[in-house]
């Protein structure tokens, strides 16, 4: 008897699995399959208790369900939505990884060029000019890191991440323009003045963002 019970279970489960075979996974699908399976098994047991043979009982129970195509379509739509979400997440993931790599390469390129030009016998102001690559690279990495979703944190919204990148970029650019204008004029006060303007703007924006931020930690 226990054996026969198992074959009914398996056949009903197979029928349900086949029915939803080409439907993308979702919590709703998982729940509906369990609900249908439980109820069909019970119906088969009812038919059998009225003296119907196992094969016949399963066949009758399935037929009496009626046309389940509407439900299958419902589930297919839900499954496609989650598949779309997964594609979307992996796309932004790829974009932000590309941004981090490009940012690191830009910074390295800037450092190497500056080092190279410093060692060549040319005016220092030209050498410092290549530092702009370091500024751009830092801003790009800032943006990419903030828009990357991690296992603990959700991705930051893109506008906010861009503002953070701008703030960091402004601070870096302030330092950069301080160095270049300092070299260009040979006057330290000009260097400080040039730095001050951009750093103040950058720090102001940065503080504003920090103080208005929302919690991005996932509740797991």
């Amino acid at each position: 008897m226990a054996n026969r019970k198992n074959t009914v279970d398996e056949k009903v489960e197979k029928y349900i699995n086949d029915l939803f075979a080409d439907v993308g996974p979702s919590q709703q699908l998982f729940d509906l399959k369990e609900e249908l399976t439980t109820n069909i098994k019970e119906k088969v047991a009812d038919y059998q208790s009225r003296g119907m043979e196992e094969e016949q009982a399963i066949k009758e129970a399935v037929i009496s369900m009626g046309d389940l195509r509407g439900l299958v379509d419902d589930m297919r739509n839900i499954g496609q939505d989650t598949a779309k979400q997964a594609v979307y997440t992996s796309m932004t993931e790829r974009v932000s990884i590309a941004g981090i790599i490009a940012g690191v390469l830009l910074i390295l390129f800037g450092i190497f060029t500056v080092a190279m030009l410093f060692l060549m016998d040319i005016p220092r102001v030209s050498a410092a000019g290549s530092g702009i690559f370091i500024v751009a690279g830092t801003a790009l990495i800032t943006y990419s890191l903030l828009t990357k979703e991690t296992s603990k944190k959700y991705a930051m919204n893109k506008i906010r991440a861009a503002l953070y990148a701008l703030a960091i970029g402004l601070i870096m650019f302030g330092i950069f323009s301080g160095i270049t204008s300092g070299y260009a004029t040979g006057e330290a006060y000009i260097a400080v003045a040039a730095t001050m303007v951009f750093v103040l703007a950058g720090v102001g924006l940065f503080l504003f963002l920090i103080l208005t931020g929302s919690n991005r930690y996932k509740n797991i």
Partner: protein
Amino acid sequence: MGNTISTDLIRGNTDTIILNILRQGDNYGYGIYKEIIKLSDNQYELKEATLYTAYRRLEQEGYIISYWGDETQGGRRKYYRITELGNERFEQNKKDWDFAKVILEKLIKGGINNGK
């Protein structure tokens, strides 16, 4: 089950039929199906495919909620319970039905007197 009710006619009343059963106690998919057969004195069977679609719709609209029962031999049963909103919906649908059945009776069986 010789006579049938047209799909159009039953479709408009499926929700009310389910709500009528659930307002008398929580029940699960197959249980509701059996209850409907019993209520019709074994004269009418509402297909389960129709019922499951209706459960999903009723739950989305907030008229019923669902919860999983304990494990039985066959697996877990998914039970449904009517909400306050569902009760209000049922009362309204019942009133609408009382009105509709009187009118439909007149329209379908009424004889036309042209004053001859």
